[in-house]
């Protein structure tokens, strides 16, 4: 793969639940090392799109290439191998409540590597240090705050040094300060490791603070209505749906609807 080849390429993606079409003919590319943000209002299909890209759900139509591999052509074993190169932070962090934070982070290492326990512990400590949770290895998820859980979730997602990290609403449920701290951490990890970050969010601060490029989804359009640098889109876009979103403006129709 050369450096200009996209790490993710989505073409003609259509998602249907029964007779309800959620996404229609969606296509985009993600370049290596960039922070790519999928934005849009609630219910526009952001998380649905993410689940299809990582292969948790199967699209009705369309193709998804990850590192040049068409994921629809892969069997379960190949898909599992591909997923090992992908990290995912879920909206709820999805830490295993019966395990300590250290055990949560160490889990991918114990399952997918043959490293001795001493090395796994050492890597776990390093990962926790990278997300500023040093010393919390023996804590349980229930003993951590929302922001700490998100950071622990990132540490677990990055345990195997994936080339891509998907983050579903990382700021959901966090206060503005914690949310901003998380943005700084995501940016720091992206710059330090070169990991491609694909983030789903509707938080304007996150969008403007850390994204290199965005795509904006719209519920009525069932697809992408804008793509590019959010700072330029906010300044130059003449699409009222885009400007309304960036300026937190509520149209009369929306207030009535």
């Amino acid at each position, binding site marked *: 793969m050369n450096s200009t080849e996209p790490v993710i390429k989505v073409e003609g993606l259509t998602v249907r639940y029964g007779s309800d079409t959620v996404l229609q003919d969606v296509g985009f590319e993600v370049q290596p090392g960039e922070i790519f943000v999928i934005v849009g209002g609630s219910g526009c299909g952001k998380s649905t799109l993410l689940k299809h890209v990582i292969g948790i759900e199967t699209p009705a139509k369309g193709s998804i290439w990850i590192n040049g591999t068409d994921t629809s052509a892969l069997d379960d074993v190949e898909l599992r191998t591909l997923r090992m190169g992908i990290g995912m932070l879920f909206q709820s962090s999805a830490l295993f*409540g019966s395990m300590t934070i250290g055990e949560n982070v160490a889990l991918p290492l114990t399952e997918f590597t043959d490293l001795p326990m001493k*090395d796994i512990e050492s890597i776990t400590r*390093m990962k926790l240090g990278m997300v500023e949770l040093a010393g919390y290895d023996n804590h349980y998820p229930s003993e951590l705050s929302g922001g700490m859980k998100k950071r622990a979730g990132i540490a677990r997602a990055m345990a*195997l*040094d994936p080339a891509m990290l998907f983050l579903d609403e990382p700021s959901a449920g966090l206060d503005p300060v914690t949310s901003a701290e998380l943005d700084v951490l995501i940016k*720091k990890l992206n710059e330090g490791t070169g990991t491609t970050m694909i983030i789903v969010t509707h938080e304007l601060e996150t969008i403007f603070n850390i994204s290199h490029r965005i795509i904006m989804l719209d519920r009525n359009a069932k697809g992408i209505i804008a793509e590019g640098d959010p700072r330029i889109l906010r300044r130059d876009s003449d699409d009222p749906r885009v400007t309304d979103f960036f300026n937190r403006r509520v149209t009369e129709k929306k207030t009535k609807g």
Partner: protein
Amino acid sequence: MPHENSYHIEAAGSGVVTLVLTGRMDLERFGDLTGLIGAIFDAHSPSKLNVDMNGVSYLDSAGALFIVRLEDEARRRSVVFALSGLSREKMGILSLIDRDALTKPSLAPRERRMNVIEHLGVASIAAVRDIYDIMSFTGELMCEIGYSLTHLQKVRWGDVVSYMKKVGVDGLPIVGLISFLLGLIMAFMSSLQLKQFGANIYVASLVAVAMVRELGPIMTAIIVAGRSGSAFAAEIGTMKVNEEVDALTTMGFSPMRFLSIPKVIASLLTVPVLTIFSSIFAIMGGLIVGVLGLNLTIFTYIQQTMKAISVFDIVSGLAKSFVFAAAISAIGCQRGFKARGGAAAVGNATTSAVVTSIFLIIVIDSTFAIILHYV
């Protein structure tokens, strides 16, 4: 062209050792690389260690951790350490590693393993607390039942009907099948012995008395505990961990009245009916063996069954099943309300509901056996 994953050590005469690394330095190679640390220092005893990373095509955090460890070891042995060939990207990964974090002690101590005596003590305290919780819950439930009986319009009858369907109608096929097979087995096994004495007819009596007085209520109760008691605990437990129970409380509802009463009423109404069906199915199972294996007529078998069981047997069996129903539904709800934490807590609540219910079923049955002996 990418370099092959390899390394070599160049030792100059003056104690200067150079480690030349090439290819990928990633998690896959981490185990091999860490083995190098001891080899370099023990075999070459360097006064200065140069690490040449010009040939490294890829460095991830595990590779960076190896470099940090190598540097720490050099510092510990007072060896001069120098890195070369670091690109901006590699520097970026190295800068992410918080060296203090690698040695920082855990803020929470690792849980100490308890010895047998401590386990026994903890288990005893938990058992006493559990009895206290069950009694306290039972008291509260009685008050709510009392309230519901005096305010019938406040009972959520829609929910009661729904739970009656789940406990009764949906449970009937499995209760029926198990009871039928139980009757069949009991009749077959007993016929092997009774045949020797020409007492075939008493197979009907044995199946009828055993099922109506003992096994019918017990088997039904155990199946209901496994199907519905666990479902009650899982449902309320999930609501508890999702803060839905707290939402009910803050909205001014009594979670006990809202969630438990419909389940308890539905169980009280359906379990005795299921018990009757259980006995009927078991008698039918026995009848098959009696007719096909013992040459009894259907009429003779049924007549003997009717002769064997009394109204007292039926009433005592139903009374038992009524108490079983109360115990199963109450324990299911109580375990659900006790759930704290996440998914594991719901699982524990469900398991505990089933185990405790079965234990209580046996205790209640024993109590009935003693009481009925003196009645």
